[in-house]
């Protein structure tokens, strides 16, 4: 990163004001700035290197995103998080209450196929629980990806160990994944789910949102909505 960019970041951080009034526009301001620095840095790199291939640019982009989140969002996380939590206090409490009721429900309430309901999903729930120590958007998105991986590995290890009966070459479909994820989320003991989802939607790298991270963030948001609207508990 150039000295000029570093100077811009310092100035941006110095001038950043975070209060209840500007919290809704703050994410736009921060994201625009991160995009701008990333764009400028990549542009300079392209000018410098004649043959920078696409893969390298994507790797540099991902590293820059992490670096900029660390530099800009991290020092302000507690303040931002505090305001978002305050705004969503009632919604967070509502989801918390719904989860307490859903924890008592059987697997079939979530629409899990019979054979998958015999599986122990506690590993996936424990992985997702590490949300409680995440601060930066990329950290949350990585936890979502790891949780999704663990779901598929859990299913396959159960099939391979013959703990569950399965058709030969059974494919775990989109029909199966969402109910499993809802179940895992309900049992993950994460607080302030609405606040977390709002933070991630507002502060995550928009470039990722049409891809795998975006897909699992969408599944996370959908699961919260399912919990919120569950009736007859």
């Amino acid at each position: 990163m150039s000295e000029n960019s570093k100077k811009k970041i310092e100035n941006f951080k110095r001038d950043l004001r975070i209060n209840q009034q500007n919290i809704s526009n703050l994410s736009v301001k921060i994201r625009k700035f991160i995009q701008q620095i990333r764009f400028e840095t990549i542009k300079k790199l392209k000018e410098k290197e004649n043959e920078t291939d696409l893969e390298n640019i994507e790797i540099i982009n991902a590293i820059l995103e992490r670096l900029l989140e660390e530099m800009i969002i991290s020092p302000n996380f507690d303040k931002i998080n505090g305001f978002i939590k305050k705004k969503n206090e009632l919604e967070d409490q509502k989801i918390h209450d719904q989860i307490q009721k859903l924890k008592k429900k059987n697997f079939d309430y979530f629409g899990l196929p019979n054979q998958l309901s015999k599986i122990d999903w506690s590993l996936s729930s424990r992985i997702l629980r590490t949300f409680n120590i995440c601060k930066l958007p990329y950290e949350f998105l990585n936890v979502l990806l790891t949780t999704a991986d663990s779901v598929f590995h859990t299913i396959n290890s159960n099939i391979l160990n013959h703990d569950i009966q399965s058709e030969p070459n059974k494919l775990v479909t989109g029909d199966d994944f969402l109910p499993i994820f809802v179940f895992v989320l309900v049992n993950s003991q994460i607080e302030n789910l609405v606040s977390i989802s709002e933070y991630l939607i507002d502060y995550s790298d928009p470039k990722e949102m049409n891809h795998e991270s975006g897909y699992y963030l969408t599944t996370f948001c959908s699961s919260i909505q399912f919990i919120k609207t569950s009736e007859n508990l």
Partner: protein
Amino acid sequence: MTFVTPNASKIVILGDSGVGKTSLALRFTHNEFHDLELSTVGAKCFTKSVHVADKDVHFSIWDTAGQERFQSLAPIYYRNSRAAIIVYDITQKKSFHEAERWVDEMKRHGDEDLVIALIGNKSDLNEYREVKMKVAQEYALKNNLIFLETSAKTGEHVEDLFMKIAEMLPSVHAKIPENLDHNFGIVSISKLEEKEKRKEKKNCC
């Protein structure tokens, strides 16, 4: 760490549960059918590129859950999609009616330039057919949809489907968010509800 394909066009796959949505995506992206090893990969967002009219079109294909209890969550998934593949099972009449419902929903709530494809899957099971091809074809024609019968099992017409979609996309480039405020291809349900309410209010006045 994941690395993204630049400017990928998002395609959402909708349809009743068990019609073969995941199998279609897997056949197209990995040329496989029900492969046990691949299920460990855990990707329910599949990616692949095709070359059309001298351009590379990158697809990001989003699988969804088809059960009725999850239908209200679909708008979170199909937001910002460039194309919707609505799948039914040719051996299940009920799944065709469900597909008609999805077509209505996408026409009402999808983006103006959304490409919609109606797909009759499991064409390898012709002897158990409950949905006549002619009926589906006429419905597709009337509603200006791409129509194909496919078999994820044999691979029949799966590649054709995605090539047709690529050809129909208004631009080979993905939409770049006009602004960064809640327009990342993902939006919370409450914000969608607000948008719908505003739309309804506008229509009734």
